[in-house]
């Protein structure tokens, strides 16, 4: 274990780290992955060009029926049997390195799978290309064993199919690299260096060397290196890259700052509270990675299918061969072998297997860009099916902090006087309502006096002396206790309460002086976010411990029709449980601490506005910003992702269920149509590229929840 003195030594040692290489820093993990992708891509492209180069001459000797494409025609009038045979021998020899170099991974992959009693895409391609090669070679060496007209080699299938599938894989790798860009983008946000105070001196060190407790200095325009709390100075911080919140946020002493966010104009010092893997950004990256590696329930279904897929295709291929061999037109053997090979080549288990995971990776990444962290594929799939969303009122729809909203003086008093006395009287009180009045008065420029003989009367209010005058601030009970006539202002109080506000009487020297009201105000974008959800056909319900009247008042302002009021905190989970009756998917939005049981009970729990505490156990979806827009966005991106996954999945299933019978020659008896194995190879390569490309479309997804906000 490290002692305090060790730590000091460690610190000094680190402070002395030379800074020469700071500019060349990049995150090793992301770099490594990008390099692996680039390396694999380059290798596949090389393999493709090699196969393509061989394919051209091989194809030129394969089609005597197409004179302008037939190589011997260039040299001789009538190619002799011997010349043709030798050209085929050369084709066969040239195709070998295509299989062994360009198609090597198919054979090693197939062998690896075979040893473990399984079969995959590699098995199909290896079988298809090698069957074509072996048949061609036997036909060339001992043509006599085959019936008349069937001993024609078709090495071009081996070469061209290998080239096409390898090209498909190369394109797929490149597209995949784009799909998983989200994590790389997140890691790129990290600050590389930090300025810390060591022995009163500012020293620049690597960001990962900042220790908890270090005082970090942040200048205008610099990135904040780790999470912490401001201890000196103030500034405005742009947190958009981490929280998705577009407006810069004012920060003062005592406020939390998040690593990887951008300081704008001020200079401040903060004490590091979380470093390394504990920072919000590191947790975000981990959560996104975990989610990308999880499974959506819909993918589990696919797993069952894909475990039977490849052997089933092999069986279909054999059956195809047998049907053509027994019942096909002459030359039956040639038709049988070509159709059997085409079936093996056209089948694409990859497209089926990749559909859901690729969309999931793209969707989860897109969410993270907007400060929406989806825990796993199951959360994403369920979020796309939500019918009801329950919003906790305090802190979710509203800011969660009361603010002074109204000051109504009685006859003979003016607003300034009323506010001056009420706020001065409330100054010593720690009650949140009193604090809201004091803060509100200060914001309005009121000068406050220090009260004497302050007394807080629990459940009533406060009584005190301000500049020698007796001031009472409190509810009707307090007024009754001192027999204050409030008849003149009772109407105002009722009106304010009807608006969901907490109204307090103020009396000065035994006379009613007016009313001050505070209310928990609605967050700026709550109305908009709720509307987006309602437009998507989701019923939005508000849940709160407040009384019915206050709750209804807030609900009206944000356009919510159904309110569950006077619900005790411990009963929220039960209410969510009741809503879930009949299998309805219910989302619950609240803070991660008080609402944890309700979040856990909901089909999808959304934890809102969590600052640097990212990994909230009870939450299926964590929203980095405090805005309800995140909920609307989460639902929108989930729907878009599931739609995308289903498109890909349906496409891949349709491709295989149509492609395989056509390849087997189902259209031949009716239309005389037979699919060339070359086209099958191209279709197979294109199908998996299409799946990845479709998933990549999600990167350009535009959400209503954010688009409208930008216009407003």
């Amino acid at each position, binding site marked *: 274990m490290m002692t305090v003195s060790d730590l000091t030594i460690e610190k000094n040692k680190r402070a002395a780290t030379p800074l020469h290489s700071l500019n060349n820093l990049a995150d090793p993990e992301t770099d490594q992955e990008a390099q692996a992708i680039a390396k694999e891509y380059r290798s596949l492209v090389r393999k493709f060009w090699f196969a393509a180069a061989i394919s051209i001459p091989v194809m030129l000797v394969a089609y005597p029926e197409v004179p302008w494409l037939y190589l011997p025609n260039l040299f001789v009038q009538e190619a002799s049997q011997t010349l043709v045979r030798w050209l085929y021998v050369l084709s066969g020899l040239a195709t070998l390195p295509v299989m062994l170099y360009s198609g090597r991974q198919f054979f090693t*992959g197939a062998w690896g799978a075979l040893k473990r009693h*399984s079969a995959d895409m590699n098995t199909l391609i290896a079988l298809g290309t090698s069957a074509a090669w072996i048949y061609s070679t036997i036909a060339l060496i001992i043509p006599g064993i085959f019936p008349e007209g069937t001993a024609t080699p078709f090495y071009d299938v081996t070469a061209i199919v290998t080239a096409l599938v390898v090209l498909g894989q190369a394109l797929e790798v490149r597209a995949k690299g784009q799909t998983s860009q989200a994590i790389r983008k997140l890691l790129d946000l990290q600050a590389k260096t930090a300025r810390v105070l060591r022995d009163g001196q500012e020293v620049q060190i690597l960001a990962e060397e900042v220790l908890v407790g270090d005082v970090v200095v942040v200048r205008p325009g610099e990135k904040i290196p780790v999470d912490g709390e401001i201890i000196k100075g103030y500034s405005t911080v742009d947190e958009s890259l981490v929280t998705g919140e577009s407006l810069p946020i004012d920060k003062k002493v005592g406020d939390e700052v998040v690593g990887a966010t951008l300081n704008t104009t001020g200079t401040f010092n903060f004490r590091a509270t979380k470093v390394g893997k504990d920072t919000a950004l590191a947790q975000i990256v981990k959560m996104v*990675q975990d989610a990308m*590696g999880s499974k959506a329930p819909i993918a589990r279904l696919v797993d069952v299918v894909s475990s039977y897929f490849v052997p089933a295709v092999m069986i279909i291929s054999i059956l195809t061969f*047998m049907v053509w061999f027994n019942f096909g037109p002459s030359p039956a053997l040639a038709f049988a072998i070509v159709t059997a090979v085409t079936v093996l080549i056209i089948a694409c288990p990859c497209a089926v*297997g*990749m559909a859901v995971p690729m969309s999931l990776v793209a969707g989860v990444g897109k969410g993270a860009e907007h400060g929406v962290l989806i825990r*796993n594929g199951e959360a994403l799939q369920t979020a796309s099916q939500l019918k009801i969303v329950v919003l906790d009122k305090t802190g979710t729809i509203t800011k969660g902090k009361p603010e002074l909203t109204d000051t109504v003086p009685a006859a003979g008093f003016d607003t300034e006087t009323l506010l001056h006395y009420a706020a001065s009287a409330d100054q010593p009180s720690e009650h949140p309502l009193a604090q809201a009045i004091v803060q509100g008065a200060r914001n309005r420029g009121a000068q406050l006096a220090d009260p004497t003989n302050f007394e807080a009367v629990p459940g009533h209010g406060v009584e005190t002396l301000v500049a020698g005058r007796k001031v009472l601030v409190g509810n009707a009970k307090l007024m009754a206790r001192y027999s204050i006539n409030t008849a003149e202002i009772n109407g105002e109080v009722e009106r304010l309460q009807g608006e969901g506000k907490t109204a307090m009487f103020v009396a000065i020297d035994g006379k009613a002086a007016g009313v001050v009201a505070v209310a928990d105000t609605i967050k700026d974008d709550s109305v908009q976010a709720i509307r987006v959800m309602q437009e998507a056909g989701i019923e939005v319900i508000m849940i709160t411990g407040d009384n019915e009247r206050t709750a209804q008042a807030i609900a009206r302002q944000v356009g919510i029709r159904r309110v569950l009021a006077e619900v005790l905190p411990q009963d929220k989970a039960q209410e969510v449980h009741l809503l879930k009756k009949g299998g309805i998917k219910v989302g619950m939005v609240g803070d991660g601490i008080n609402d944890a049981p309700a979040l856990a009970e909901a089909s999808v729990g959304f934890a809102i506005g969590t600052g640097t505490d990212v990994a909230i156990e009870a939450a299926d979806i964590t929203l980095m910003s405090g805005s309800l827009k995140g909920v609307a966005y989460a639902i929108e991106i989930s729907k878009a992702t599931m739609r995308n996954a289903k498109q890909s999945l349906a496409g891949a299933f349709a491709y295989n269920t149509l492609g395989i019978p056509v390849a087997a020659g189902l259209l031949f008896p009716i239309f005389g149509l037979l699919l060339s194995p070359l086209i099958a190879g191209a279709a197979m390569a294109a199908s998996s590229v299409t799946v990845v490309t479709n998933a990549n479309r999600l990167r350009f997804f535009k959400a209503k929840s954010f688009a409208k906000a930008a216009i407003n």
Partner: protein
Amino acid sequence: MDITTIFVNILGLALIALIVWYFWLFRREGVQVAEVAGLQEVTIKVKGGYDPDVIVVKKGKPVRLNFLRQESAMCSEMVIFDKIQKSAKLPEGETVAIEFTPQENGEIPFQCQMGMLRGKVIVAG
């Protein structure tokens, strides 16, 4: 029907039977993991599949599976344990450990992201 046709048809049916048996019906013994100092540790080579792919461990003792990917094909770049909600990226040539302590008997399957490569951990008393 001549002798060749009969032979070809019998061969075809035999191949189908072989495929059904080899890929679907065959049940294999798993590799029993040795326990060293309370830890059940095994290295799994990843190359066109998982080797070994059926691993037998004891309940209640920590398990460490060291995955070593020896290929650059993108298919196997991730291993997923859906049942225990774990996953890991497997950079080529690097050993990546997945650790867990199985609490009940049964099977814990693992696979690549696309579900093409598969393996399982069998937890026995």
